[in-house]
């Protein structure tokens, strides 16, 4: 009995902040302006398929790069002395304390045609290069914003890997490469899949970053959804339908990925 009473605040919280909003999204997605049931909002998604695919493509690329960059960083941090680990983690997390708009503006001033990077290269009579307003800049923005979400879960599993186990592998004949493939990757699997999910999910619904760094030609599904609620093409019904479709796609990809992940565990 007692445990049920304790669960009440949690249930109320869930109802107010999860169930009701989700219900509203579904309701709006399947109704017209006049409140009648319709599938036209969902069907209208057809016009935005290219944006949707672009979002998925960019976030897959960003996730892979986050993994490739984050993996060695997390491992190196996990092998430092205890005291230094905290400091290094701080450095990883610190940028997240700055508002992401500010951080993205900072990137704009770096990447612009008259930005710091081009001016610096200009000293050597290089450039100016076209560093901003392209897909690369958008992906860079995603990586920069979300890489801590890759490093943290990786670090938290890697720090539990016993140094003796790595030494045992060396003792039995493992060179550096085999230590990574036979010991560190298998023992970090949980962190890898958590990291992939925590980077991919926010990446795929990214907005504003893409508009600021993509120059208007690289808008993502997040930007389109936002403009249905706040922009001039005000249409919460279409926005809800898009959110719903995006959510379903993310869930599908995640479940596919999980399936794949657990198959991998057998090997």
């Amino acid at each position, binding site marked *: 009995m007692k445990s049920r009473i304790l669960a009440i605040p949690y249930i109320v919280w869930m109802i107010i902040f999860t169930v009701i909003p989700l219900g509203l999204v579904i309701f709006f997605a399947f109704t017209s302006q006049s409140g009648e049931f319709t599938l036209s909002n969902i069907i209208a998604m057809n016009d935005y398929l290219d944006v949707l695919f672009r979002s998925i493509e960019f976030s897959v690329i960003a996730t892979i790069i986050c993994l490739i960059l984050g993996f060695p960083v997390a491992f190196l941090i996990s092998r430092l002395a205890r005291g230094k680990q905290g400091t290094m983690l701080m450095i990883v997390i610190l940028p997240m304390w700055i508002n992401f708009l500010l951080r993205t503006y900072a990137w704009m001033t770096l990447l612009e045609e008259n930005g710091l990077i081009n001016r610096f290269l200009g000293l050597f009579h290089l450039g100016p290069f076209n560093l901003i307003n392209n897909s690369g800049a958008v992906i860079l923005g995603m990586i920069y914003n979300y890489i801590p979400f890759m490093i943290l879960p990786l670090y938290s599993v890697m720090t539990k890997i*016993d140094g*003796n*186990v790595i*030494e*045992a*592998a*060396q*003792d*039995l*004949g*493992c*060179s550096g490469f*085999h230590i990574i493939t*036979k*010991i560190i990757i*298998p*023992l970090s699997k949980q962190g890898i899949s958590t990291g992939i999910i925590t980077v991919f999910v926010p990446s795929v619904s990214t907005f504003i970053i893409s508009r600021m760094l993509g120059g208007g030609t690289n808008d993502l599904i997040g930007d389109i959804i936002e403009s249905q609620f706040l922009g001039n093409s005000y249409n919460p019904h279409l926005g809800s339908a898009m959110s719903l479709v995006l959510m379903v796609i993310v869930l599908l990809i995640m479940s596919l990925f999980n399936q794949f992940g657990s198959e991998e565990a057998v090997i």
Partner: protein
Amino acid sequence: MENIIISLKDAIVEFDGEQILKKINLDIIDKQFVTLLGPSGCGKTTTLRIIGGFQQMKSGSLYFNNKDITKLPPHKRQVNTVFQKYALFPHLNIYDNIAFGLKLKKLSDKEIKSRVQEVLELVNLIGFEKRSISSLSGGQQQRVAVARALVNRPKVLLLDEPLGALDLKLRKEMQIELKNIQQELEITFIYVTHDQEEALTMSDTVIVMNNGVIQQIGTPVDIYNEPENAFVADFIGDSNIIDGIMRKDFLVDFAGNSFTCVDSGFERDELVDVVIRPEDIKIVPQIQGAITGVVESVIFKGVHYEMIVDASGYKWKVQSTLHEEVGSLVGMNIEPMDIHIMHKMEC
């Protein structure tokens, strides 16, 4: 001439500016069971890690069959280790843990299978192949760790307190098993322990260490009967260690009396440590004793009684199959050959 397989020369190791190993010199004879014995923190694991390749020395060098391997990385050494905390691979089952080294050597599946089977038999774990590491008891994990190292047929096997986590009975069984394995496979074992009894019963050679310095190297019998200094005497079996003065060759003063002894070659009136084993003291009626004292306590220890006898302040430890009443006055006699005279340790 016996073949020296591993030789450590002038090894110095420092952690945070503190010398942990102070110029260690070691020769390990091929196919022997060699034990590193010493109290906790004396540098046993560190010494083993040098041989395994996991610990860099500040200075010094390591030879394997007369070849300098000081700089050779661990995965290229013909040495395998059983780690102090087992260090089994948690993501692999028993079979894959043991087969790990063989798979890296790219042996055929058939060969791997038969060799794994062979060591599983050796350590009594047939039928455990598919079990996960976490489902094993401490003793079983221990045996997997031994099997995982042995299966590679190393020239030298390093074992770091491999029986530390086991209860007394299992430890005794495993001691016999390990000794048999060592003799059967004719592998050199370098075995770390802080249990003196374990060291004495299993080894061909015992190396006693303290504070990063080797105190004595010898056979178990040598170490027990002729300890080179008071530390070794005290560490190997309980000893009575008393201050004495060497009057001249074969005559020593201690406990307010002069005793004939078998040692010579000390300076006249040199201050020495006199070491006497508890089992070498004979309890006699008070008037016949060279030393007299009051029995303070009596503890039954199984085969013998252990008494503490207070003789004008110094508390003697005496072992005997008979015991006296607590509080009674007794005499104690010591045979000349049971009196061991040692130079004072320089501190």
